């Protein structure tokens, strides 16, 4: 056992801190879901994406031939951790651009698709921003039940149907779209295919869905006879499910480190707030902060273990689910303790975090009102617990 990072990671961490101090406004503190909401925040995030690309960090884990640095999983982890801690925006290229669109294209895409899209993502270009269209009104956790269809017509596919909860669709140039290409497939996950779809194509309508606070995070996306060149099919027709399962592995490396970096920052902010406001005298607050630091330290080690397994060539199946459930638990716990610490000030609208009544730049209110979304997105806790049960404990399928 040895839980030390190498020199490379140490150096990288330092560079990222310097970058954050130089490129972000003084006392910067980022919050969840903000960058996709306001135009000015989005533009700022995109300007940072460009700079991250210039540093070679944006897609650092990609091979050099595709605009990456071939960075190790540990460098990637250090980067995700630091970027989240410092609140660096613009790290993802929409929903999935960096984490799964690029890697999937490398694995399954044609040369044409790779040549076109990978440089756009890697360079932080506005045309390299993606949204991910999986969920539908009747297919959430049961994703394989999607009904949006693509039917071959000459050199094109014609797509009809509807996606929902599509985050950042209003910011994206491309959609990573899952559809049914064979509705008669004996098993429902056998008829799924993935397409790269230009969001400017005729027949696509994006309709905003506002969250209860007022954030514009996700959308409904309607496909009405949308014609997509057949060359935009990613990998094999009807093999989409298997391809997605495969490329999920890439996504996993970044999630755990991001959660840890973000949580650690919020905890640090709370600690300083309590110190400055003499709240450390209160036993409930002492206990609350102690409990959070226990959990966040635990999260760190779990995250590292997942990466370790990946670094040894393993494909961790239940570990990312374990880490997701644990992160959701921490977010909730931290939201309760944090709002408890702010007391009356926890009521301030997170959309008005520049208000003079807002404490800690609104990061606690933002956490409180928005953590439910994080815990639902990308697999609810119940679904993740099913995965842990089946693959971590070898229990029979429960549903």
């Amino acid at each position: 056992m040895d839980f030390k990072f190498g020199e490379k990671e140490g150096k990288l961490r330092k560079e990222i801190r310097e970058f954050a101090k130089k490129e972000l406004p003084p006392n910067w503190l980022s919050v969840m879901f903000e960058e996709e909401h306001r135009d000015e925040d989005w533009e700022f995030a995109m300007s940072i994406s460009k700079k991250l690309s210039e540093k070679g960090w944006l897609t650092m884990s990609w091979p050099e031939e595709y605009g990456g640095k071939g960075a190790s999983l540990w460098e990637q982890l250090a980067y995700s951790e630091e970027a989240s801690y410092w609140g660096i925006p613009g790290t993802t290229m929409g929903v999935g651009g960096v984490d799964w669109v690029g890697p999937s294209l490398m694995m399954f895409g044609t040369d044409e698709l790779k040549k076109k899209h990978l440089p756009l993502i890697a360079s932080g270009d506005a045309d390299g921003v993606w949204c991910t269209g999986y969920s539908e009104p009747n297919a959430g956790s049961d994703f394989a039940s999607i009904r949006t269809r693509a039917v071959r017509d000459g050199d094109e596919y014609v797509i009809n149907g509807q996606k929902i909860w599509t985050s950042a669709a209003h910011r994206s140039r491309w959609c990573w779209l899952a559809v049914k290409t064979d509705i008669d497939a004996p098993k429902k996950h056998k008829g799924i295919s993935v397409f790269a779809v230009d969001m400017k194509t005729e027949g696509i309508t994006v309709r905003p869905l506002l969250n209860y606070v007022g954030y514009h995070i996700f959308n409904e996306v309607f496909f009405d006879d949308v014609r997509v060149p057949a060359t935009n099919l990613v990998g094999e027709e009807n093999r989409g499910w298997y391809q997605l399962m495969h490329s999920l592995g890439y996504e996993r490396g970044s999630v755990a480190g991001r959660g840890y970096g973000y949580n650690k920052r919020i905890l640090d902010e709370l600690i300083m707030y309590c110190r400055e406001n003499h709240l450390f005298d209160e036993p409930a607050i002492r206990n609350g902060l102690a409990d959070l630091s226990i959990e966040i330290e635990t999260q760190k080690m779990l995250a590292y273990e997942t990466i370790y397994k990946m670094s040894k060539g393993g494909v961790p199946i239940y570990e990312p689910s374990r880490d997701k459930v644990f992160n959701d638990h921490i977010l909730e716990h931290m939201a309760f303790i944090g709002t408890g610490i702010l007391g009356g000030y926890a009521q301030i609208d997170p959309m008005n975090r520049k208000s003079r009544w807002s404490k800690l730049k609104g990061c606690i209110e933002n956490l409180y009102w928005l953590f439910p979304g994080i815990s639902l997105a990308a697999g609810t806790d119940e679904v993740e617990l099913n995965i842990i049960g089946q693959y971590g404990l070898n229990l029979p399928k429960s549903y």
Partner: protein
Amino acid sequence: MDFEFSEDQTMIIDSARKFLEKECPKEKVRELKEDEKGYDPDTWNKMVEMGWMGLIFPEEYEGTGMDFFDLMILMEEMGRNLLPGPFFSTVALCSLPILEFGSSDQKKEILPKIAYGEKIWTLALTETSATYEPSGVALQATLDGDYVLEGTKLFVPYANIADYMLVVARTSDKADPKEGITVFIVDAKSPGIKTEVIPTAAHDKQCEVIFDKVKVSKGNILGEPDNGWDIVEFIIQRASVLKSAEMLGGAQTALNMGNDYAKERVQFDKPIGSFQAIQHKLAKMLIDVEGLRFLVYEAAWKTSIGSQSALLNSIVKAKANEVFQRTCLESIKVHGAIGFTEELDLGLFFLRTKASEFALGDTGFHRERIAQELESYKPSFLS
């Protein structure tokens, strides 16, 4: 970064697991609960032969020269199997501080005898106030030619069979309760010592030890007079990680038992593990136990490379306290009524929870220490 055990460590684990399965079946654990001594001298001697007592002593003290991490692994295995006996009190609570703070004569005299299993040791620290805070040390040692010890220690593990004790006493009254504390090396057979086993639920031979004008010579001080709290602090740091490793082993067994049972037990024509309420309970137990595992390993690793962290050690013990208890409880629920019986081994684990929690500081104690660390630590965003 490396989350794998070395070859040597894997060997320790394999041999310990085999040995304990054979030497310490649960019938033996049950027997020893009722046994007056509370340990099996035969097993003890075999542990000596395996080199466990002096595992981390240098060779000059007849040890094997392994490190703290290796000792931690051994504790985890003992916890998995619930090995009863004075290993923890002798090795974790006494030999480590003697190795660290003892004079070279003391080390030469004491450590080889521990390595050979000839002497059993224990630590007499807590008193009627049942706290690990320095303010809890009230037993008086008065200098009158020799020192004279007067007072009562409570929850002293295996004092009923110990040959020697480290006794933490107050030698002078200072404003700061940390000052004026001295650690004495005391022959357990000294006149004036009276020992009585406390009836704990775990039947783990914790004792009341009364010191009635017990004479201890000036030479039998560990470290320096009046500066003994540093030693106690050292013991709390090291032993709480080792205790947590033992609890981790116990929690892992409790989880495994629940997991196995959920696959076998059929109700409503299905294994109960296919019911989501049961499956999700077990999944959460897994998150608990794996989280504890890597925390314990991190703390032990840091200690073994010399960069131990008081913050991390307290995080570990607080987490172990919660996880061991919760995992046992949830596993009992998964088992249904059989989980409530004497017959199922699970109860033996559950019965240890309160003793383990109290040892080296309960959750409140360590939370408070964490909070104190947080009050003074510098977040990196201010750097």
